[in-house]
């Protein structure tokens, strides 16, 4: 680990103390996890603390951990305790370092996470996107509408239990003379199956 990352980790520990759930360094990247209740306060500290100075939030995305490490979508009772997370990538221009901030929503059925819109205004559309695709509610967001999917779309398409072909398809009906929705007629198929092998299978990194 380089001296710079050491310094960043130390600064994070000093500034946040007990509020850190986990702090990991992997492949030269620092990842911080915090609890949903502390999220907004931590974000404000990350931006304003002179030793951290994360002026920019480059990205925020939703992640669904329901089938992590599994081949098929698990049964309802086997889904991991916390399913939805919001992951943001922060950047400090002053110190020239990056941080990944992760927060898990506590409730799987109705995931709610604080909005960071007032901390970084630019995160607005990223939160709308995470809401649209994953159904994560961002409390405090002033304009939480769907953004990428169609007007009147039902469901959250990037959830792991949403099929890749979707549920409805659209076509022009010459008799009704308008566009109609109907259940999908495509046969689901998978050309290359998803395979999870044992750890270090093939030893890709260190030449098998």
């Amino acid at each position: 680990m380089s001296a710079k990352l050491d310094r960043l980790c130390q600064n994070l520990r000093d500034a946040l103390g007990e509020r850190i759930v986990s702090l990991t360094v992997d492949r030269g990247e620092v990842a911080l996890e915090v609890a949903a209740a502390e999220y907004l306060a931590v974000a404000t500290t990350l931006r304003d603390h002179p030793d951290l100075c994360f002026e920019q939030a480059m990205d925020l995305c939703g992640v669904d951990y329901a089938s992590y490490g599994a081949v098929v979508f698990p049964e309802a009772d086997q889904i991991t305790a916390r399913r939805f997370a919001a992951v943001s990538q922060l950047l400090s221009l002053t110190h020239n370092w990056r941080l990944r901030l992760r927060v898990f929503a506590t409730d799987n059925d109705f995931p709610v996470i604080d909005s960071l819109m007032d901390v970084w205004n630019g995160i607005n559309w990223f939160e709308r996107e995470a809401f649209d695709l994953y159904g994560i509610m961002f409390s405090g967001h002033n304009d939480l509408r769907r953004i990428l999917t169609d007007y009147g779309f039902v469901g959250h398409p990037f959830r792991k239990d949403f099929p890749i072909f979707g549920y409805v398809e659209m076509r022009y009906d010459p008799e009704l003379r308008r566009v109609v929705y109907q259940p999908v007629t495509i046969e689901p198929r998978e050309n290359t199956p998803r395979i999870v092998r044992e750890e270090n299978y093939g030893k890709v990194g260190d030449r098998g």
Partner: protein
Amino acid sequence: MAEIKNYTINFGPQHPSAHGVLRLVLELDGEVVVRADPHIGLLHRGTEKLMETRTWIQSLPYMDRLDYTSMLVNEHPFVLAIERLLGVEVPIRAQYIRVMFAEITRILNHLLSIGTHALDVGAMAMVLYTFREREDIFDMLEAVSGARMHGAYFRPGGVYRDLPDRMPKYEINKFKNAQTVKELNAAREGSLLDFIEDFTTRFPVYCDEYETLLTDNRIWKQRLVGVGVVSPERALQLGFSGPMLRGSGVEWDLRKKQPYEVYDRLDFDIPVGVKGDSYDRYLVRMEEMRQANRIIRQCIAWLRANPGPVITDNHKVAPPSREKMKGSMEELIHHFKLFSEGMHVPPGEVYVGTEHAKGEFGVYMISDGANKPYRVKLRSAAFQHLAAMDELSKGHMLADVVTLIGTIDVVFGDVDR
């Protein structure tokens, strides 16, 4: 006097200057914009979800189809992210080739951006000149990857193949006589590198031509100067990057600040704007093209002097050559496994941000050790810039909205993903 109320109009999704399929709902007070609400997603293809169902290499060509005006710079962060997850070494020659093509596509992007921006605000001629140069660049991409636009040329571990020794030539047909063909082929007699070098000697002259047409053009300045001013503080708050951030006077370029590949060995400057208006951003893009040209020339010089491998010899990641595959059982198995099951990437997560032509292009990848990504998030700069459309256009005239769309440099393959 009649009572005048604000009214709402639809701009797009099929407006010629909407750069694709932007539906902009504008609330107007007379001709002044009160509120702009961009509706995006008309080109949403669910690329990130599709990637979850494809192997790592099968997902790569999707990257070309995001920002279809700058294809190879899109592939760049994607392969860098896979390489960081895998921990493979990339041959230095491959890194130079990648940087060279990233800069060539940066020129390609800015040519389109400036050309169509000028077209949108009423300067018809500009796009004819910039598309002339784009044609040469498409020929380079075709020579190296076989495809004029969607190259799929960068691969995890290097590039698909080495630079070709000869350029494809024009042939005589009923539209082109011997004399025309001879002129067209003048630069194509040597290798691809010769052709690119010839282009880089011509290109600064072309840039001067563009500047003659636009930089001091009275109408161009009337349409751009003072339109869409963003202060450095607001630009940071809104998450701007690339020319949009530098136009506001923030000296930030990932190629310099967080160098990846061989950018730390190359000599180039970062242009920054002063006022943060559309005109400054135009000047920044113009200068970036000249700097990209400089980088390309340095890469050509290095590539001429240093032959070598262009893709890693780790056959768990990159396929063996056809020759070896036909002769050796082990290589045959490698080849088969790679193209059926695909490679297994160790569990973990990375975020790689690169300096795309439009700003920071980020790829966030989570792997759970399977032969497919668990989650890929593509962070495109134009998405973030378009989100600021409301703030940029507030108080401007309806006609300025066209200028603003041009200065943001949106491409909808990139915004909607």
